[in-house]
Structure formats: structure tokens, C-alpha cells
């Protein structure tokens, strides 16, 4: 805990680092032990990290299966022409200078094996085409560097062929897990979602206690009874949100924001103890069946509660899965009201309420802050909020500007579809990867520091639980403070004036005056 990390320098303008071979070769997350492997139905040898008998054949069999199943993976393996466009685009390369963190090099960890066993040239003239035998060393390298990718897809934006390293990483992690090398963090968490309902392992009574406490808090502050209902049958909306929203700061202030918006809009809503988690770590580990099982809980909860609409809270990768795949994974959603998007993002709901003047807003409540906005990678590059091209960029900014007077964007090459990952996404938000997380945050911290210096920005708003937790942790390493990261709905919460808000306190003032 007292470990000192080398924090990369930040500059006025981005500087591409000179390469340092093997700079991060030591970095690897804890391996899942036998208990966590078997909890996921993955095989394991005696010790974590030991490969199972017949691992090589199994790996190649799995690769063959994936190449058959996912045409994209086959195209990605075949297409790269080594043009170099991606080399300086990854935040982990920029922050660590390790050339294996260049997206092309990361892909090549799998590509060189693919070439050796699945292409004519690689089978007969491997030395000509950079094809190598699958050895334990290759596997260890894969485990290290495929856990230095946050599946954020920034490289894919710049690749002329659109090669998506995220998909390569997901495929590789899945194959690794199935030969005994699963990652502890994700594999410890996923079974909790099936057993308890969420990644945290927050049982229903604890959720109820937390939600009641929040209701009391809102009432103390506003004198308005705002509800945070749990498992209420017949509500209009089921809200599925990351469990961090019940647990951590600043996430919980975002949850309060959702509650106030629903209250002000007069829409009945409920949370579910069964689907008390939006996150879907099945995506991170590239496991389709897990993605499906995790999504099906939401379907079951929606049916049991008899809701008519499904809304997702502030969570990046959850929205990626929901927006792109929910219908395939857990559809058809014919039992929901077809007049609304299925699923809908909370920002779409709030934006609509703002546009229709349903919310009474006092922007000056946020005057003590000057905001900027961090586009979460999974929202920016893997989904959409709103129904126009690019509205995933404009919608959150429009909501922020509707509730705040002071806003300034970061440098254009670090926002929208060129946004940098927070450094902790894609299943890497674990303490055993703290060095990687700190270094990977460098590009975002640099652009933030520059708007702080040049435009007086005081706070950065985000719409992803991982981003919020990651920044809370890494901001202090870059000379800033953990409370400089806020939830977008926290800003909405600050500015919203509920009907009847403050009336009782005015009464008190009158009483005091009379006295």
C-alpha cells in the first residue's frame, strides 16, 4: 500500500514517448485460483497460472472456433498492413512507452500464432511472415499485455481498416481463461452477480438500508420526499444502474440525481434487487455466454416487476452491451412499451425532460464549479445516446450546459470519438494493476490539467462508474484531488429545484423572524 509509483509527466502539448522495450513486461493482474476458475466453469491446474493438460491443442481449437464464429476476428487477423497509424494512439503506450502496448504489437501477440497455425505461409515459412510457435512464454506475454488493453477502441478510430483491438483482446482473454489463465478480478466478481445480483455482492437488505438512508438525506436537504424504490411491482420504469451507484462517491450523487429527475418528471420507477447491476463483465472477458446470462437477469426482473420501460444509469460498458446487444442477448422485448427506446439511457430521459421544461433548474447552484466532460470510451466509440450520429457526444454536454453555467471542453483530439480511456476500463480497475492505471491515465490527466490551467476548469464530469472510480484514485497522483470527478446527474441533482423544495425551511425562517 505504501508502494511508490513513477507518475508520468504531463505537458502542455502531447509528447509521443521514445520506446522502452519491456517497460511493462512485469505487469499482470492476479490470476484466478481454482475456486474462482471453477466458479466460472473454467478449467484450472493445481496452481494459479499453471496451464491445464493439453492447453496448446485447446487454445488452437478455441481459436479455430472463434475464427469460424466471428468473421471480424478473421478479418482483423488477416488485414493489418503495419502502416503504424495506431502506434501512438493507445493511452497505455503513451503512458508506459512499452512498444508492446502499441495496438499493432498487441494484436500481433495473437496474430503471430494465427499465422503459424492457420495460414499457408506461416505453416511452411514462419520466419518470413513473423509466425511463431505457441509456447508458454507466448501465453504469458499474452496474459500480461492483453491485460494492458482496456478495450476502449481508440486505436480502431485511427486504423484505416478499422481493426478493433478490443475484439482481439476479448478473444484472447477468453481463450486464456479456458486454458487455466483467467484473471482474478473479473472471475471473482461475475459469480456474485448471479448469486447476489451485483458485482459488489450487495445483498437486498443492505440495498434497502442504503436507499432508505439516501431518501432521508434528500429529505433533510430539500424537505421533499423523494423515493428510491426497490422491487416495486407495476412501476413504469426499471432503472438498471451500476452497483457502484449505491456504494461509492461520486457515483451515489448521480443516483440521487436520477431519483430527483424521476420525481420531478412524475414517472414511477423502481430498482431491482435481482438486476441490481448494470455492469456486464462478460464483455470484458470476451465470454458470450456470461454476457447472455447477465443480460437475462434484466429481462427476468423487468418481467417480474411488470415495468413498461427499461432505463440504464451512468455506466459505460453496460450501455455498450445494452445498446448493441440487449435484443440479441435477452430479447425480444415485446412486453415493454414500444413507444420508447429499448433500452433507454438515463441521459436521454433527462434530456427529454429538460427539453420539455419538466424540470425546474437553477443553474447557479453549480456556479462554484467550472466543468469539463470526459467522454467514456464505451459510450463514445461503441454506442450512441440519442438518435443522431454523434449525439452520444452532444447529449451529455447539452445536459451539463442546461444545469451549469460554466463549461469548457478539453482539447479536441482528446474528446468525442478521440477520447482517451480513463486508464481503468475493460476489467482493469483492480489494485493489482495500479501502476498501469496511473500510467494509462496520463493522456487524460494531461488534457485535464491543461484546461484547469488555461480555462479555470475545477471539475470533470463523467458518465461511467469505472471512470469515476478510476479518477477518484488517480487524480491525486497527478496533483489534483479525488473530489474533482463528479457524476453528470450529480450536477443535475444540484441544480434541480423540486416542487416544494425549501418551503419548510422558509417556514422556519418565518418562525425565527417572528420569534
Amino acid at each position, binding site marked *: 500500500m*505504501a508502494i511508490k509509483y513513477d507518475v508520468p509527466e504531463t505537458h502542455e502539448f502531447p509528447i509521443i514517448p521514445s520506446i522502452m522495450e519491456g517497460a511493462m513486461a512485469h505487469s499482470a493482474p*492476479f490470476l484466478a485460483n481454482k475456486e474462482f476458475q471453477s466458479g466460472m466453469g473454467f478449467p484450472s491446474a493445481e496452481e494459479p497460472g499453471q496451464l491445464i493438460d493439453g492447453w496448446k491443442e485447446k487454445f488452437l481449437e478455441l481459436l479455430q472456433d472463434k475464427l469460424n464464429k466471428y468473421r471480424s476476428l478473421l478479418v482483423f487477423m488477416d488485414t493489418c498492413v503495419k502502416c503504424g497509424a495506431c502506434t501512438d494512439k493507445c493511452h497505455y503506450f503513451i503512458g508506459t512507452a512499452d512498444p508492446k502496448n502499441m495496438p499493432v504489437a498487441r494484436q500481433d501477440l495473437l496474430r503471430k500464432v494465427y499465422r503459424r497455425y492457420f495460414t499457408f505461409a506461416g505453416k511452411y515459412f514462419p520466419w518470413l511472415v513473423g509466425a511463431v510457435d505457441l509456447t508458454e512464454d507466448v501465453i504469458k506475454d499474452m496474459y500480461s499485455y492483453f491485460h494492458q488493453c482496456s478495450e476502449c477502441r481508440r486505436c480502431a478510430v485511427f486504423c484505416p481498416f478499422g481493426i478493433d483491438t478490443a475484439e482481439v483482446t476479448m478473444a484472447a482473454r477468453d481463450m486464456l481463461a479456458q486454458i487455466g489463465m483467467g484473471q482474478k478480478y473479473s472471475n471473482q466478481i461475475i459469480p*456474485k452477480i448471479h448469486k447476489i445480483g451485483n458485482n459488489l455482492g450487495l445483498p437486498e437488505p443492505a440495498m434497502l438500508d442504503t436507499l432508505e*438512508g439516501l431518501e432521508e438525506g434528500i429529505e433533510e436537504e430539500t424537505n421533499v420526499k423523494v423515493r428510491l424504490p426497490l422491487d416495486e411491482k407495476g412501476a413504469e420504469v426499471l432503472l438498471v444502474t451500476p452497483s*457502484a451507484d449505491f*456504494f461509492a462517491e461520486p457515483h*451515489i450523487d448521480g443516483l440521487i440525481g436520477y431519483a430527483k429527475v424521476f420525481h420531478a418528471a412524475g414517472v414511477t420507477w423502481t430498482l431491482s434487487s435481482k438486476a441490481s*447491476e448494470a455492469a456486464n463483465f462478460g464483455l470484458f472477458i470476451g465470454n458470450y455466454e456470461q454476457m447472455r446470462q447477465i443480460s437475462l437477469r434484466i429481462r427476468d426482473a423487468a418481467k417480474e416487476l411488470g415495468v413498461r420501460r427499461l432505463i440504464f444509469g451512468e455506466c459505460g460498458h453496460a450501455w455498450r452491451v445494452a445498446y448493441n446487444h440487449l435484443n440479441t442477448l435477452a430479447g425480444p422485448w415485446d412486453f415493454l412499451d414500444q413507444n420508447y427506446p429499448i433500452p433507454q439511457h438515463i441521459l436521454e430521459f433527462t434530456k427529454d425532460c429538460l427539453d420539455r421544461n419538466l424540470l425546474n433548474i437553477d443553474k447557479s447552484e453549480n456556479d462554484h464549479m467550472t466543468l469539463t466532460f470526459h467522454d467514456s470510451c464505451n459510450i463514445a466509440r461503441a454506442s450512441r445516446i440519442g438518435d443522431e450520429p454523434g449525439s452520444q457526444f452532444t447529449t451529455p454536454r447539452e445536459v451539463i450546459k442546461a444545469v451549469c453555467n460554466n463549461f469548457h471542453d478539453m482539447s479536441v483530439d482528446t474528446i468525442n470519438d478521440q477520447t482517451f480511456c480513463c486508464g481503468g476500463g475493460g476489467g482493469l480497475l483492480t489494485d493489482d494493476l495500479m501502476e498501469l492505471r496511473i500510467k494509462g491515465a496520463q493522456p487524460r490527466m494531461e488534457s485535464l490539467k491543461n484546461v484547469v490551467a488555461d480555462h479555470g476548469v475545477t471539475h470533470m464530469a463523467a458518465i461511467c462508474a469505472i471512470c469515476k*472510480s478510476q479518477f477518484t484514485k488517480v487524480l491525486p497522483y497527478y496533483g489534483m484531488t479525488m473530489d474533482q470527478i463528479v457524476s453528470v446527474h450529480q450536477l443535475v441533482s444540484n441544480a434541480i429545484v423540486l416542487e416544494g423544495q425549501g418551503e419548510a425551511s422558509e417556514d422556519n425562517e418565518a418562525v425565527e423572524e417572528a420569534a
Partner: protein
Amino acid sequence: MPIEVNGKSFETDEEGYLANLSEWEPAIGEAMAAAEDQDLTDEHWDIINFLRDYYEEYQIAPAVRVLTKAVGKRLGKDKGNSKYLYELFPYGPGKQACKYAGLPKPTGCV
């Protein structure tokens, strides 16, 4: 890697969290804190004991807001905030204090 306390050995995970919750005794918390150069005052123990009580009832550590609220009620509003908790446990009440209390580390997007 097991931790040695008063001549007895207790199993912990890779990050030093106690493997078996029921084995916990205050001396284990003291030993873990000492290993991290963290002094434990009465204020620290107040939080650690609250965490243990809460865990016993709910099978999970309390949310930060639940904790700050409880602390605020007991010790006054000026201490009912995460700043106070981070002063006590610089690495975060959720993780550092849970460790000394013998509770599992909170997992997920936190």
C-alpha cells in the same frame, strides 16, 4: 501469504485481506496496520468496529454514504464526510479499513 500474530498464523489473500472472517481478532488488525506504518487510534477503531457490526448485519461493508452518515451522527457533522475518513485511512475507508477489520475487499467498479 499468511500473517503471523501472537505466534499464530492466519491465511490471507494476495493483497493481505484475511481469508477467514471468523478468525479475526483486534491483534490482527493491529498487525496489518503496523505492517503498513499506519497507527490505529481510538478514532480508527471506532470506524473498524462500525464496519464489523455493519458487516455482521448486512454481509457487506457499508456504502461510503452510509458510513459517513453514521459517523456524522456519532461524532458530529464535521466528521460525517469522506474527508474525515480519508484522513484516518488514506487509502480509502472501503479498502484499508475493511482490511484491518478482517472483511473482504469490496469488488466491482469501486
